[in-house]
């Protein structure tokens, strides 16, 4: 049996391969040298690469991203690890007004990777913001949202070879998920979605942890003789509309699934793009399944009640199938 890695280990393996090849790469983040990060994402790399390249920083998000941008301008290839994407609120200017715009304004590339976790887990309202689409909307930023160990490794390797800033968003709830990964030469390009399950009647478009929900839903739908195709976007910017629309033109229906609070965002962007390009192929309105428009609560039953699930996807799909 082929060896499998966890989602976190896959990140680490991709990093080790790239850091070994390219001495300009270094990591800045809180609690990374000894602890290896809050998700063990760089566990053991401190010993391997030393304190200069696995660099602990104080809890100063603005300074660490500024340090990353400035070092990138000086020819380095920094990774800033924010641990939680929620902490990006403390460095929004550095991400969106500096990193994102410098290549455009100054004609100097900024090869900066900012890693953070995305998605909803326990910990309450301030550690579970789903704001991936904010960054995808910002001209100048690329956004990766891998859902499997293979994609994590392939996309972090690509990220470390791009000349422009990347938000590398790993889903908290997938930290321990296992899977096979590619070898040192297996890069996954930005802007290429993956058709992870072929189907006939319905296209489910998703990313991150929600891809698993789509698989769950597709299994249930199979029993009802409804065949769902699942597309994992893998990157939110660039967004692979071509793959999405090709699928929708085949199935005639689309439901977009994510953990966002459901106002604007990736699903709205996709719905608009799909209807504009493929209106004549649609047999039903485009559906959206997302979380409630609410902060994330502490209580597990409350979280469950507000989040999408396999069943809520099935319900939306069945509603749309009936309407067509």
């Amino acid at each position: 049996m082929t060896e499998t890695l966890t989602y976190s280990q896959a990140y680490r393996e991709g990093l080790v391969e790239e850091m070994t090849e390219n001495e300009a790469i270094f990591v800045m983040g809180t609690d990374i040298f000894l602890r290896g990060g809050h998700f063990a994402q760089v566990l053991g790399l401190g010993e391997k690469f030393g304190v200069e390249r696995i660099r602990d920083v104080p809890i100063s998000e603005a300074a660490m991203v500024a340090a990353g941008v400035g070092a990138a301008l000086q020819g380095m290839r920094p990774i800033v690890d924010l641990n939680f994407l929620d902490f990006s609120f403390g460095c929004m200017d550095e991400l969106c007004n500096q990193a994102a715009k410098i290549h455009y304004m100054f004609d100097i590339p900024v090869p900066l990777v900012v890693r953070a976790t995305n998605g909803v887990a326990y910990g309450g309202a301030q550690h579970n913001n789903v704001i991936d689409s904010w960054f995808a909307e910002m001209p100048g930023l690329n956004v990766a949202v891998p859902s499997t160990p293979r994609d994590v490794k392939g996309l972090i390797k690509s990220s470390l070879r791009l000349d422009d800033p990347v938000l590398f968003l790993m889903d908290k709830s997938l930290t321990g998920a296992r899977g096979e990964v590619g070898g040192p030469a297996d890069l996954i390009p930005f802007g290429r979605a993956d058709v992870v399950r072929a189907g006939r009647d319905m296209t489910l478009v998703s990313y991150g942890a929600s891809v698993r929900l789509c698989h769950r839903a597709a299994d249930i739908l199979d029993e009802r003789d409804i065949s769902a195709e699942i597309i994992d976007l893998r990157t939110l910017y660039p967004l692979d509309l071509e793959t999405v629309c090709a699928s929708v033109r085949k199935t005639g229906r689309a439901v977009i699934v994510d953990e966002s609070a459901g106002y604007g965002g990736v699903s709205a962007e996709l719905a608009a793009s799909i209807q504009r390009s493929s209106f004549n192929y649609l047999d039903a309105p485009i559906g959206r399944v997302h979380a409630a428009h609410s902060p994330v609560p502490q209580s597990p039953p409350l979280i469950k009640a507000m989040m999408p699930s396999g069943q809520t996807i099935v319900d939306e799909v069945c509603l749309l199938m009936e309407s067509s």
Partner: protein
Amino acid sequence: MLESEASGETSAPSSLADEVSSDRLLDWLDGMLVIRHFESESVRLSLAGKIPGGIHSSEGQEAVAVGTVGALQDQDVASGTHRSHHHALAKGLSPRSVMAELYGKATGLSEGRGGSMHLVDASRRFLGSNGIVGAGLGLAMGAALGMKLQSQDLVAVGFFGDGGANTGRVWESINLAALWKLPLIAVCENNLYAVETHIADSMAGTSIADRATGFGLPAETVDGQDIAAVHDAVRRARERAVDGGGPTFLEMRTYRYEGHNVGDVQNYRQLAEVEDWRAHRDPITRLRQHLERGGVLLPGGYDAAVERARQEVADAIAFAEASEWPETADVMKSWPQQALSVVSA
């Protein structure tokens, strides 16, 4: 240090004569005069509608920029603020390319994609003026980190103002630079006003430099209208940085003669205050007097220098006027990745 006419203050004997040749002092005078005329013309052109979006004039603050850059090596980095024409020109960006960028012409530094608050020239190692208060310091701090990791004997200078000294990001950067002993020189241009708010109404504590001492790095208050004092402070800071001694914080007391932006109605300060700074502490006048007293600047020499500056700025304006607008088809030029395909219907 140069003798000041303000309340007859005279600093300790200057090492200027030993450190800086007469030719360089004359270059500094030229440099400050070009900035002064560039700024007064920029204000005029902005009010005339030639420069879209206005500008923040650095008139009065020339010595901070010219004296600081005069103590740097060519490969040292500087990054600026929203009020940064003087930094850019001092760092060697040509008046032509800066003026054309202010106009938004194709011959500008960034071919019209930047503007007054986003002036850049990587070849001159100027990492940009910056529209966000305090942000330029962060970029310089990051560049200093890169220099340290690359074992280069270079320094980065980050300019910011008294307004920036009230932002969190400035102190995050100072802390990190001090913690990591980065080759950073943090230059706070305290011109007393953050837009329209006087520092007495915005700053708790005794001085900005005093705040910095709490971070454990050397912090000095410098007469920013004395180019010799500016140069000396930066020279020492640079030596300390390349010797591995880490960053230095320099609060330079200076003054802007114009308002925050062009056309401001200045109800927030007395005209007499502006006139006092112009009459008694002007950095150009002080250097001129020093040079004339020492016989370095001969009779007629100053007027000739003023005329050279006028001509250089006039040439820059003529260049900007004659330049073409950017091709609108190039609006996405040098832009990273495009949104993948818009799928055609």
